């Protein structure tokens, strides 16, 4: 342990209040670790604890780790500062009613309400129970959960492929196909040259450092000439999958595919959308397939909803894209292109997505050519901006997908500059 003792110890009552605050934050899904608690306590010695602003920022620096946790912090801090009760459940004791550090709060005697002893009281906090990083709506109760799973999965399952099968489980052959996919992605996914080079007998670059280093052992005589070659690293794979109503029959396998890909490729990213975009990378990142998929299902609010591809891609572009998620990545969009939104928006967003990505691949399960789809007007508009358009690929054919990813190659796709319709401004 590397916990240093604070030079000065904060007042007992303050300490108790701080611990209560941390506990409340944990209750609401913030990872207020003991480290963070300790940091906060040390901070309290340095600042003016009567100053609301200073307290607010010190606490935020210690307990909050990402912008999406801030609303929770704001809400709880406000209650804390006003001296209102923080913890919600009645009589719940899993978080240390028995916590020895809580003792002090009973003999607080502080003038400030937030340092009184009320943090111990357990009263329901009004408003919804919010979650920070884990903003995944979980199933309500233990017993209700399994029933609900049946419900969700039943709605999902596709008669054609699942007839006579147990709906809840992935079949052995499916799991095998997924493992093969993971393997294939690891082995064959497109690579990029990294800035680093490594010693290589077959390399073409003369390795001065390596040669000199070698010659140190032979009294400075260079007996061996070293060569180096650039190292290869896998490119980021970024999946953006349509799980709207028209894609329903594929979504079950698609989700498992995403899980396999996220597990296999370093820094792979998974997004799904129907009317809005949901990032699943973190949700799917776990060992247990079933568990990860359950969580993912719960995390997507609009399974089998209508499709607004343009808006969903726009969401991606303005939030994640802007931060560089798609830079240098192979972006794979899996969608049938049936868009209920404005085709102009779809066109603009696909163009923007292409400009950010190394290669934009669109996998469309519909076999016919785009012209035959009356609804896919947007798709037609977007087509010029897609590097590889793969029609008629059934995402349920996982092996085919693996093959496809492996075959993409590392070359930069040739792109024509398409004059934009939006260029009249």
């Amino acid at each position, binding site marked *: 342990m590397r916990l240093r003792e604070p030079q000065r110890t904060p007042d007992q009552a303050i300490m108790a209040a701080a611990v209560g605050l941390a506990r409340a934050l944990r209750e609401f899904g913030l990872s207020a670790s003991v480290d963070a608690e300790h940091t906060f306590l040390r901070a309290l010695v340095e600042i003016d604890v009567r100053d609301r602003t200073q307290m607010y920022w*010190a606490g935020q620096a210690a307990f909050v780790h*990402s912008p999406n946790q801030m609303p929770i912090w704001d809400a709880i801090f406000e209650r804390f500062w006003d001296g209102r009760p923080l913890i919600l459940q009645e009589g719940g004791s899993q978080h240390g009613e028995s916590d020895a550090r809580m003792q002090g709060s009973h003999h607080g005697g502080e003038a400030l309400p937030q340092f009184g002893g009320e943090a111990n009281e357990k009263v329901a906090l009004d408003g919804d129970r919010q979650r920070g990083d884990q903003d995944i709506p979980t199933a309500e109760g233990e017993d209700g959960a399994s029933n609900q799973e049946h419900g969700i999965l039943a709605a999902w399952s596709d008669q054609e492929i699942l007839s006579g099968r147990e709906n809840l489980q992935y079949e052995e052959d499916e799991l095998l196909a997924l493992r093969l996919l993971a393997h294939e992605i690891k082995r064959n996914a497109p690579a990029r040259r*990294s800035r680093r080079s490594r010693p290589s007998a077959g390399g073409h670059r003369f390795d001065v450092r390596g040669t000199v280093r070698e010659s140190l052992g032979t009294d400075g005589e260079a007996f061996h000439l070293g060569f180096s070659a650039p190292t290869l690293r896998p490119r980021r794979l970024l999946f953006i999958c349509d799980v709207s109503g028209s894609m329903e029959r594929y979504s079950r396998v698609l989700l498992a595919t995403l899980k396999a890909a996220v597990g296999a490729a370093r820094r792979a990213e998974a997004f799904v959308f129907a009317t809005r975009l949901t990032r699943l990378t973190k949700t799917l990142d776990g060992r247990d397939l079933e568990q990860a998929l359950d969580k993912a299902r719960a995390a997507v609010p609009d399974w089998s909803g209508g499709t607004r591809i343009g808006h969903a891609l726009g969401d991606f572009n303005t939030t994640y894209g802007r931060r560089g998620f798609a830079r240098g990545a192979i972006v794979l969009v899996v969608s049938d292109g049936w868009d209920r939104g404005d085709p102009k928006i779809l066109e603009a967003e696909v163009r923007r997505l292409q400009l950010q990505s190394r290669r934009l691949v669109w996998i469309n399960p519909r076999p016919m050519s785009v012209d035959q789809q009356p609804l896919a007007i947007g798709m037609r508009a977007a087509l010029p901006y897609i590097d590889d358009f793969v029609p008629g690929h059934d995402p349920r054919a996982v092996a085919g997908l693996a093959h496809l990813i492996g075959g993409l190659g590392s070359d930069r796709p040739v792109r024509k500059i398409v004059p934009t319709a939006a260029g009249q401004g």
Partner: protein
Amino acid sequence: MPGFNSIQEMRNALTNQRYLMDEGLATVVFLALRLRKPLLVEGEPGVGKTELAKALAAATGTPLIRLQCYEGIDVHQALYDWDYPRQLLQLRAGTSTQLYSEEFLLRRPLLEAITRPGSVLLIDELDRADDEFEAFLLEFLSDFQVTIPEVGVIKATEPPIVIITSNRTRDLHEALKRRCLYHWIDHPDLQREVAIARARLPHVGQYLADQVCAFVQDLRWLDLFRSPGVGETLDWVQAFHTLGHNELDSQTVSSTLGTLLKERDDLERIRGGDLDAAIARSSQRAAQLRQGNYQ
């Protein structure tokens, strides 16, 4: 160790370096200095994350050591490497010295930071580095010591002030965040942005600064693909000044907008909109700002 006794004292010192911070950032930076914890700052591009480290180094009169992260960065770029050519020369010269000693060590930023007491270490865009590097950094940040097999353990006599920035292209490890203080820097509000513009560009007229900043503040509400940062605001103010304009006019706005917005779609959108109305709005806000100040 820079001895700032109060938040205000530190804030003043940074203001002298023309870095204006709000109360939140000031509190957190002060705590980072006092608790000797690394500070992880995140925020939109152009809100002054990197500038913070530079200003801090200048204000404390210590060297700024910068480690720019990128994919594939490893120990030899971040920590140390051996100076093989010098070793070779030494060997050729025939003098018998220990070849693997501190004398032949190339200090990369991290090693540099722990051997120079009280320096400011900026680890820029950590999210670009790989996971492994982050894990390595974790070790470094908790002990501020480095083990070099041939030399031994080198430990910081005085840990550096560490500022880590990230653009959130991926989530950093929870373990790393736990070791740091965290702060999200927002775009400055109108008053602060004007103050920054005035501090950085003292030769520019007050009215122009007010007007430009008001205009930019409006733009940030528009959900552009890339919102302009403070740096771009400053460039734009400077552009007007250079062209000899003391206030906004729609033609110059249109022709210089590329200083501010770097995305074609954004440019088209703003140029295609009603520029005169937007300028009128920013003039109005600029006037309000002055009234508020002089009341």
